[in-house]
């Protein structure tokens, strides 16, 4: 099977998953109790107004029709109106997505960057103290609730030490940099606003740590076990026999191979970060999509719930897809097995 065939097969496989997800979430959102229309219009609304808006939103139609309408709208960028913000859910999400992406991408980057050396050290020192330490640290990392870590960080670094800002993406009164990517770190550098860059970075620091600890732990353990597998392989033994320096063997050859298989987890980790950003964004009042999602859930804003869930689902599936692609590209055996 050629690489292109493999790509197409994988892509086709993703479509029914996303489609099915949309049906699932749509159904869940439609059993929400209470009258969403009355909620939207407020207590003073008359019955006629309620009926009119219900008809306008298509809520008087049977469920399959509602779903078809909704799907048709989604394709055209009309994701329905948020009952909380009165905006199109799509534009609400588009406006908030960059904040969430900035948080998750920065978190993933640092988690992986730190996980590599720790993982290598642990893997090449199997069953020695370095390994045990990394194991215990990792288990601690995945055991603490992220929202609680976030609060503890606030208590220590904001309340007690007064070193960092409590919440938000920028200090009050600091204007966002000119929008290019809408990632403040990038945009502020493009505009040469270093003050803004520093401000954005200090706001990112605590959320990143709170969100990233568990991911760092997971990726570190994975790299460790891959390193252990690699060590047993012939080429490593041969290289050692030739007297190549250990560091070179470890970081250049072994890590390269180990990293290939770790990619899967990095992809998954990205998906999980998206999923876990919810509570962390709430604690830090981070103006992202995840916070929007939680608010949607608390306010039973059903179009927004569907929208956010679909976006996260697509992010999840896409991350897996991209990982599979890279994986198939780097390791042709995968394609053959699938074929």
């Amino acid at each position, binding site marked *: 099977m050629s690489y292109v065939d493999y790509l197409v097969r994988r892509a086709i496989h993703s479509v029914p998953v996303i489609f099915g997800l949309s049906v699932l979430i749509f159904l869940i*959102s439609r059993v929400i109790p209470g009258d969403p229309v009355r909620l939207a219009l407020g207590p003073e609304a008359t019955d006629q107004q309620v009926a009119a808006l219900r008809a306008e939103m298509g809520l008087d139609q049977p469920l399959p029709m509602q779903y078809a309408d909704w799907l048709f709208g989604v394709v055209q960028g009309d994701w329905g109106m948020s009952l909380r913000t009165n905006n199109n859910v799509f534009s609400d999400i588009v406006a908030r997505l960059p904040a969430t992406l900035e948080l998750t991408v920065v978190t993933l980057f640092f988690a992986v960057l730190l996980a590599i050396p720790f993982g290598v050290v642990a893997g090449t020192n199997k069953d020695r103290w370095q390994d045990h330490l990394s194991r215990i640290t990792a288990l601690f990392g995945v055991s603490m609730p992220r929202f609680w870590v976030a609060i503890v960080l606030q208590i220590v670094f904001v309340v007690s030490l007064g070193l960092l800002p409590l919440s938000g993406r920028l200090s009050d009164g600091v204007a966002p940099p000119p929008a290019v990517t809408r990632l403040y770190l990038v945009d502020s550098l493009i505009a040469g606003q270093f003050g803004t860059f520093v401000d954005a970075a200090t706001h990112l620091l605590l959320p990143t740590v709170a969100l990233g600890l568990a991911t760092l732990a997971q990726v570190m353990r994975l790299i460790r076990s891959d390193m252990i597998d690699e060590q047993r392989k012939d080429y490593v033994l041969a290289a050692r026999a030739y007297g190549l320096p250990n560091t070179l063997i470890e970081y250049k050859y072994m890590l390269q191979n180990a990293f290939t298989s770790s990619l899967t987890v990095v992809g998954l980790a990205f998906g999980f970060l998206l999923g876990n950003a919810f509570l962390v964004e709430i604690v830090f009042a981070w103006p992202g999509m995840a916070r929007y999602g939680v608010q949607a859930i608390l306010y039973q804003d059903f179009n927004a719930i569907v929208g956010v869930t679909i976006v996260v689902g697509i992010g999840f599936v896409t991350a897996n897809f991209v990982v599979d692609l890279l994986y198939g590209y780097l390791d042709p055996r995968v394609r053959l097995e699938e074929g």
Partner: protein
Amino acid sequence: MSTKTSIPFLDTESAARKERIRQLKRGFRTFAGNKLSLVGLAMILTLVVAALLAPYLAPFPEHAGAGVYFDQASEPPSATHLMGTDTTGRDIFSRVLFGARLSLLMSGIVLSIAISIGVTLGLIAGYLGGTTNTVIMRVTDIFLAIPPTLLAMAVVAATGASLFNVMVAIAFSWWSWYARLVQGEVLSIKEDEFIESSRALGSGWVRTTFREILPNVVSPITVKATLDMGFVILVGAGLSFLGLGAQPPTPTWGAMIAQGRNYVTSFWWIAVFPGLAISFAVLGFNFIGDGLRDVLDVEVD
């Protein structure tokens, strides 16, 4: 079916059994040799004892129920109140103990439901194959494509906030991994000789399932379930942190943190101690799970 033909089969079976017992014994020694697992076991036993004996261990058991004690509100940790009191004067230590009950109970129930659903669907899919398999596994893929926390939040939003709904919602979001695992095992084992032979010998598929397939998936399920005990506690805490769980005065750990969050600037202990309790419980299960993983030699993410 003659006696002659059945003897080799019985032999194989008893041999397999002996082997399994040997493995278990070896496993127990490995587990016992793994200090972390023992620590984990001790932690969880402590937690279970604390949960069971909460009414006797808690210095102020009445603080877990309806009641307000404003004369001792927001007191820092002291000998009387080991973890301080909250803004309504309730002893946080007592509430944390009762919270352990709720967390363990919730996690246990959620996993029982999730594993039952997952294993059943996985068995059906793997065993029957064909269209049934495709349909079930596609649905499983859908559930795998969404973070369980998010799905559970959406379900609770739809069904209303309560401890029962939270359990249903998490179980609903949690079964997919088990279905995938069991289906995979069934597919690979189905091709194995001894299943083939047992089928050839005419034993029913129910019997095959229970005698041959389930024992093979017990190890990975045990490991995964142990780790999941902790992770379900985390997800449940997250939901009750958002106010989607049990309602006041129920002392769930997540809700206690949510309350303390308003006071990070003044009364740090209100949020900190329940969070430590969660970390303690999850860490305990992770230590055990990690040890079991080595013992049973299975790969579980």
